[in-house]
């Protein structure tokens, strides 16, 4: 509760905030009441359950993970392959839209995520860390995590996604700032030989996937390839509503295509994984000063990696070692609108190429009873972090060479002080060849107040390393380097209650405060009028969330959540941050219709008002999605039909600094049909 009484000067906004925290108090009171009520209920004995019921109970395929979710030193959400299928999720961003505390913006090129009130316009998702089977997917030039159709893995190849809110730099280092998203892909064990899938949808969209999985004795083989193509929509941008710009109408510029290949081989403790991904997207918004309605404005993003992991017990130690090699590329030609009428259009291309090698080793063991120790080290050698010169002729990549080295050491200990009280503490030291060292601790106290009640007190620090494009921007002559740029820091404090209510429900609620310092911001340098990235500004967020989830044996399951965050800058008057919705509410429901053969997945998302870069207020919105999924006996054939934005709600996301639009309209109602066969 002390979180809400910070000393501050009296201003109208402070009063408003105090009023808001009253609402939070009331919620906490209700929560405390339900928690005590729920704690008294007893578990129904599974031995009383009928045979039919038993065979219908859904196992948390991640039973140990769900368990660890309640023991985890953080607030965790898990999304399973089953939910991905039943809600008709199309990409990772769709999954994140359903996650408490997360909201998504789309600029018709990339998809960006905001977490707990922070969704900086201009950020490249570098304040979240996305791991694929533990492998870091953020690239090494923009620090960018791909989330939408640009994401590296077909959503159908995901077995489970674990979303951990809060800073986790004490384990993962950079980018683990607001959240870590770890997705676990399917292996040969979860794919029965051949799986073929085809989907077709609105806006001339088609996608095909072929997957083969087989277990040859000890050798597990999984191979999967996906191809996607979409013609895109004809769009209207009022900004360009004049005769020279086709009256603001643009067609053939919203196209998109991607290809993914994923290969995973497992043999005893070894896992060898290879991934190839490339995406081509037209840019209809004419950002970075491009000519409007020109199909030659596009981006090609590609990312490939090979990784080898080894897990093995050595005496009392569990060893986990891995090495990987990544390469990421971007090529983005921009047909620059001439400043003088009659001048020719110049095609300038921003490109980067990143190559990096990673080596990691982690050992853990039980030190003594109820004490588990983990020690680890990571080396990341950024062999290339080159950006291409804008002023060069199209597609001629003249790199500005760059490289850096990161070394890290970490330790974490989980200690059951008593049978009810667990302390989870860790610290990680990262050394960057660019800015030096940073140390980030985390500590969590977890108290098992009753069989189904967990009280958690969480504290953590994290950092976001300055990315190459911020240290030495290569966007043209009007940008200055800043070799002294330091990392951003976040300090987070959170209190949570996790309560099982009877056998069917789980209630989770928390309050938190995030403080961010040394925000890396683009500022104008007074001496020469150029732009430069500098550590300027601090920000804070106070928030709460409450989530109720439940599932029944007959397949009925769902969750409902509400979030409220007040995020503001620490500058004079505490102005609210832009792209920060105060309230958010989410509803997810899977209803079995005919036995286990037909199910309906319903989603509802509400997002509060958000400010744009020009300080205009974007209307709040609700969007509903519906998916019907049916399958034959034995699941040889699945048929799914989805309607996205069922009510055809017209809504907008805020534009980014590079966009000429201050608000960008999002998709209306759209459809998709998908058929999957297994042989």
């Amino acid at each position, binding site marked *: 509760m002390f979180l809400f009484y910070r000393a501050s000067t009296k201003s109208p906004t402070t009063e408003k905030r105090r009023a808001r925290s009253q609402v939070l108090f009331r919620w906490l009171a209700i929560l405390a009441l339900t928690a005590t009520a729920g704690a008294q209920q007893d578990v129904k004995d599974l031995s009383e359950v009928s045979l039919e019921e*038993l065979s219908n109970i859904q196992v948390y395929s991640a039973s140990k993970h769900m368990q660890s979710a309640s023991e985890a030193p953080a607030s965790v959400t898990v999304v399973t392959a089953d939910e991905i299928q039943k809600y008709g999720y199309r990409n990772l961003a769709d999954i994140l839209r359903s996650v408490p505390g997360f909201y998504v913006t789309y600029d018709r090129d990339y998809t960006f995520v905001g977490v707990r009130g922070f969704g900086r316009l201009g950020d490249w998702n570098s304040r979240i860390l996305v791991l694929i089977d533990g492998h870091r997917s953020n690239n090494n030039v923009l620090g960018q995590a791909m989330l939408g159709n640009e994401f590296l893995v077909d959503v159908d190849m995901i077995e489970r996604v674990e979303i951990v809110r809060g800073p986790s730099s004490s384990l993962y280092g950079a980018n683990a700032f607001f959240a870590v998203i770890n997705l676990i892909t399917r292996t040969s064990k979860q794919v029965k030989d051949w799986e073929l899938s085809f989907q077709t949808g609105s806006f001339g969209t088609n996608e095909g996937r072929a997957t083969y999985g087989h277990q040859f004795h000890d050798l597990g083989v999984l191979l999967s390839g996906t191809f996607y193509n979409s013609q895109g929509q004809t769009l209207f941008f009022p900004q360009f509503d004049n005769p020279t710009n086709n009256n603001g109408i643009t067609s053939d510029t919203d196209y998109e295509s991607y290809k993914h290949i994923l290969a995973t081989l497992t043999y005893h403790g070894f896992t060898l994984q290879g991934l190839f991904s490339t995406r081509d997207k037209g840019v209809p918004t004419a950002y970075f000063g491009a000519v409007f309605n020109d199909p030659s404005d596009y981006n090609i993003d590609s990312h490939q990696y090979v990784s080898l992991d080894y897990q093995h017990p050595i005496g009392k130690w569990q060893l986990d070692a891995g090495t990987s090699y990544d390469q990421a590329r971007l090529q983005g030609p921009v047909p620059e609108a001439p400043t003088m009428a009659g001048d020719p259009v110049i095609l300038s291309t921003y490109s980067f190429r990143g190559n990096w090698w990673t080596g990691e080793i982690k050992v853990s063991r039980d030190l003594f009873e109820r004490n588990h120790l983990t020690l680890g080290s990571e080396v990341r050698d950024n062999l290339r972090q080159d950006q291409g010169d804008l002023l060069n002729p199209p597609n001629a990549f003249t790199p500005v060479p760059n490289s850096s080295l990161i070394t890290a050491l970490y330790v974490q200990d989980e200690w059951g002080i008593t049978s009810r009280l667990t302390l989870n503490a860790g610290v990680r030291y990262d050394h960057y060849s660019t800015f030096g060292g940073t140390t980030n601790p985390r500590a969590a106290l977890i108290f098992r107040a009753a069989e189904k009640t967990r009280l958690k007190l969480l504290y953590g620090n994290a950092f976001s390393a300055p990315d190459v494009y911020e240290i030495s921007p290569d966007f043209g002559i009007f940008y200055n380097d800043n070799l002294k740029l330091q990392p951003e820091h976040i300090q987070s404090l959170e209190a949570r209650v996790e309560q099982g209510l009877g056998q069917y429900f789980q209630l989770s609620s928390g309050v938190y405060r995030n403080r961010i310092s040394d925000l890396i911001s683009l500022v104008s340098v007074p001496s020469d009028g150029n732009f430069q990235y500098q550590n300027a500004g601090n920000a804070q967020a106070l928030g709460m969330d409450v989530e109720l989830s439940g599932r029944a044996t007959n397949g009925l399951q769902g969750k409902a959540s509400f979030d409220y965050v007040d995020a503001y800058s620490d500058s004079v008057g505490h102005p609210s941050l832009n792209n920060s919705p105060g309230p958010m509410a989410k509803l997810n429901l899977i209803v079995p219709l005919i036995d286990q053969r037909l199910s309906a997945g319903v989603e509802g998302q509400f997002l509060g008002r958000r400010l744009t870069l020009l300080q205009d207020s*974007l209307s709040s919105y609700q969007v509903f999605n519906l998916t019907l999924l049916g399958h034959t006996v034995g699941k040889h054939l699945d048929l799914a039909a989805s309607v996205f934005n069922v009510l055809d709600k017209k809504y907008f996301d805020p534009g980014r600094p590079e966009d000429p639009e201050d608000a960008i309209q999002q998709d209306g109602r759209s459809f998709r049909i998908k058929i999957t066969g297994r042989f």
Partner: protein
Amino acid sequence: MRIANLIAAKVSGAPSPRRVLRMVALLTLLLGIAYAQSPSAGEYQIKAAFLYNFAKFVEWPASSFHDGAAPFQICVMGRDPFGEVLLDITREKTVNGRKLEVGTVADLEHARTCHILFVASSVKMPMQQIIEGLRGASVLTVGDTKGFVEQGGMINFVLQDDRVQFDVSRTAVEQAGLKISSKLLSVAKVVSK
């Protein structure tokens, strides 16, 4: 007029936090009503409950018990994946008036005295050897490994769509002098001859 102004003009009072709270409360209530029975559970909690049910829905010859008071024995071979859950589920339970006993066995000699033998996936002993060792004894073998039934085991657990299912080999069960109820067979995923 800039697009942003147009949008701002259109905003006709976004829902207040209070209204959203009410919405969430309503949804919560609806969810509460919608929910029927039973939650999800840990994989081995369910498997343990199944073992208890196998004891109920399979008939053992009287000769497999020393006397009328002899307990019904459920044994685990290999690394025990159940932990406390098997003990919890069988505690103070009876089957046909017999108390349930749970224990681990290390060798086949002892396994012959069991009624249900759960062969954990950690067991490296070839299936053929297990079958040989149990020949003539009325032991229901329950596996947790792919191919268990194909190699001569009686019942095998499989995970399908996050649910615990089981396959049954009717021949193997009957050869051991056990009778399996049709109710159990009707729930089985695959029943092989």
